[in-house]
């Protein structure tokens, strides 16, 4: 067969992933930037458009599937990971992405999130974290800071917030990363790394809700502040941060970590070298938690990418194949007549 007779393969473009639906997010919402990044990354993955499925729950972020020209399923509040698990179980070949928010994934759907991660279902999760309930018009969320004053907490919230990254690593997710809506290049690069991961990939995207929680991430996004507060992670590189790249993270003798000023006898070679591929999650957990400590930066990028664990859907399907290989394909007539039977003449 001659290849000359085949029509030329037109590479997909960003436009192929846009729909004719009117986008109904507020002007200035961080979700636009995330949508744009995903629409830019999808055509670069070498996957046929019909094999993408975007699944979501409820909330502003969960409108996402309507704006992606792929198969899409806007489900109910918190349940996207479970719906996506069913899809992956039956069709492991599909590329399933879940769009969710801090309320959807960590509050009402918290159970499904942790179970999807511990099972290592091959689903990419985009957690839009704006630290607020937007669609219900401004109540605090499970990632809102303590003492948050909102419509439902006029005297301040009394809950301690979840750290989504710590939660994901606690559930032993095999890929955990963080990016920001406005860091387009970083976001796209992170999404590509997530796409390359076979198992569950959990990406927290810090997203600005300019209506109900404007500036929630300013300390990490504003040009002046961010280099002091953000630790950009790169596998195999020392943990350095600061405007002048003069600070770093060093191991203490008790196993804990500390922030050190470079110079005066402290060199980069004394710092922790980032190892995203470590099979055990303890180091990544330590990193995930440091931002809560005074003087420590917020890690950004891929905290953990350990891809040696088989995907849940593959194990499930392999088990079926193994049983068929052992027993042969099921014979219905035999099944119905299994066990003790008797004949009436």
């Amino acid at each position, binding site marked *: 067969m001659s290849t000359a007779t085949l029509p030329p393969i037109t590479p997909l473009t960003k436009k192929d992933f846009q729909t004719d639906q009117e986008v109904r997010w507020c002007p200035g919402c961080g979700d636009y930037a995330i949508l744009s990044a995903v629409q830019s990354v999808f055509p670069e993955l070498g996957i046929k458009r*019909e094999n993408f499925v975007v699944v979501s729950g409820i909330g502003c972020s969960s409108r996402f599937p309507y704006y992606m020209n792929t198969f899409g399923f*806007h489900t*109910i509040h918190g349940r996207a990971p479970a719906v996506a698990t069913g899809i992956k179980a*039956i069709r492991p070949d599909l590329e399933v992405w879940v769009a969710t928010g801090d309320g959807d994934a960590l509050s009402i759907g918290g159970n499904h999130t942790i179970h999807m991660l511990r099972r290592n279902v091959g689903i990419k999760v985009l957690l839009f974290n704006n630290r607020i309930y937007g669609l219900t018009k401004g109540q605090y969320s499970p990632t809102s800071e303590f003492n948050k004053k909102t419509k439902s907490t006029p005297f301040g919230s009394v809950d301690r917030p979840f750290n989504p990254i710590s939660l994901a690593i606690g559930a032993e997710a095999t890929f955990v990363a963080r990016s920001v809506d406005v860091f387009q290049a970083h976001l796209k690069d992170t999404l590509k790394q997530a796409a390359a991961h076979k198992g569950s990939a959990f990406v927290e995207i810090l997203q600005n809700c300019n209506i109900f929680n404007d500036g929630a991430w300013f300390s990490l996004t504003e040009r002046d502040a961010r280099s002091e507060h953000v630790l950009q992670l790169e596998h195999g590189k020392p943990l350095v941060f600061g405007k002048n790249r003069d600070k770093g993270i060093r191991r203490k003798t008790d196993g804990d970590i500390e922030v050190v000023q470079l110079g005066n006898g402290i060199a980069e070679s004394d710092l922790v070298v980032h190892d995203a591929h470590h099979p055990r999650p303890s180091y990544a957990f330590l990193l995930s938690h440091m931002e809560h400590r005074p003087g420590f930066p917020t890690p950004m990028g891929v905290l953990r990418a350990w891809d040696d664990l088989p995907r849940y859907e593959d194990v499930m399907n392999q088990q079926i194949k193994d049983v068929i290989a052992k027993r*042969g394909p099921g014979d219905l007539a035999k099944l*119905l007549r299994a*066990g003790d039977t008797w004949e009436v003449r």
Partner: protein
Amino acid sequence: MSTITEVPLPKHKREVIDQAVIRFAGDSGDGMQITGSQFTNTVALYGNDIATFPDFPAEIRAPAGTLPGVSGYQLHFASNDVYTPGDAVDVLIAMNPAALKMNVADLKANGILIVNSDAFAENDLRKAQMTSNPLEDHSLDKYRLFSVELERLTKTALEHLGLDAKSVSRCKNFFALGMCYWLYNRSMDPTVRWIEAKFKNKPLLVEANKLAMKAGYSYCEATEAFQISYEIPPAKLSPGFYRNLSGNQALALGFVTASQKSGLRLFQGSYPITPASDILHELSQYKDFGVMTFQAEDEIAAITSSIGAAYAGALAITTTSGPGMALKTEALGLAVAVEIPLVICDIQRGGPSTGLPTKTEQADLLQALFGRNSEAPIPIIAPATPSDCFWAALEASRIAIKYMVPVIILSDGYLANGAEPWRIPDVSKIPDFPVRFATEPNSPEGYLPYKRNPDTLARPWAVPGTPGLEHRIGGLEKQDVTGNINYEPLNHEHMVRIRAAKVAAVVQDIPDVVPVGDAEGDLLIVAWGSTHGAITAAMNAQRALGRKIGHVHLRYLNPLPANLGDVLQRYKKVLVPELNMGQLLWVLRAKYLVDAIGLNKIQGRPFKQAELEQKIEEVLGL
């Protein structure tokens, strides 16, 4: 060395009878369910018709010897048709005082009472809250009491095996079983085979259980304890191959069959819950049929994973009981809105809340009909007998796929655990219902996910991975045909009405009802689900007395059969017996303006034939 074999075989009387009801009762740890199901299997293999009623507590091991710990298994077997497990029992085996106390009231006068007399010490009596020993105080004089030292006799029989005391004691149920086999003149071979398979890797236990059973059998033979044994000839069932089948097994086999006949992979998302878990246990064994079972993290993930699997092209089911049904409510609404096929099995149990986990009830009908926010109609099918669950599973799957709707199967604890002989169908005679997924755009504008089949109103099923059919679905209200989000008032009304019309259209797949018994007359009994057997028995008895009674047993509860309204008019009175406060009654009165009368029992137990007959006579003014 056994002393039993040295005794010459006595001559005893053997009487041929047409039926018997036997109940094994003991502590939860006494193995009564195994004993009962072994006896059942043996008599079924012999060819008797049977109905069973396993009745056990929710606690796995309540304190030994106490009243809440009593577990029972009742079997009705006969040489003629059996419809119920029987109102009263002919033979009661009571392993301890608590079992005796809880069950003896159901034993017929002059019935056979076999008691483990080793379990009647003062302490045992105290645990059962008894002040005097019934074996000595003449309170059991109206029964044929056989006090048997089950503990000691079992110990003697197994002495030479060197087994520990606990394991020896656990064989005493098989001693009792052996006695029953002697009493009803049945072969021990099927149980021997079962013991050998069950304890395959524990040869000592194989030996012990076999010996205990044979010792029980020989004990009867040697001691002339009963003086009489019984023979119940095989029933005249339609020719064919039979097996014993419980409702939950039947559902599992029905879904495997539906998977094969539709050509779709079977996916079951489920969370363990009594009395539905056995469906999961059963289906998880059938991986050679490509069956995928997913034990989800909760009831909600159980149904939503199934929705995902259905969306991806599977025959998807989820199985639960009332409390789980409540948790699945929102997802059921999603399945209605996105119009995908899904079968939900609700194995009803007593409620509200946790209620009576192991006891039966029919009180989820209105939940199944209406238990969702807004207008969200779902077809409902209710099997009438354990083996009917097989056909209900097939039928529900077929309707779900044909109409692109979720379908609810309402079974209950009584059907789930009860067993009956099932004539094994010829699989080649069960029609295929192949599925045609959408493969091409269905309009010049591209693929329209809500463009409907004019006959069924079903929308097309386009699974992910199909080129050119990329589309979005979800729980937000959609425009018909295009599936685009749409909040316009008239569109919403149209969509609500079309979802209702689609479920109503299922009526074209539902046969008209034909009353059993008299086609018109004084009384029509309308019922559904597991009450079928008791109603049939009661009606037959009453008609034999010359009363003009018909019986309609509704298999389809939504939509209702097209001619039901007409049939209701043909009788002077309508009686609706239900194991609830009158839920079908409520529906019939509302829909047909019929002045129907309810008979309602809410005790976690099935109807007795006598209760139904009494009510029939009352309604007929007799």
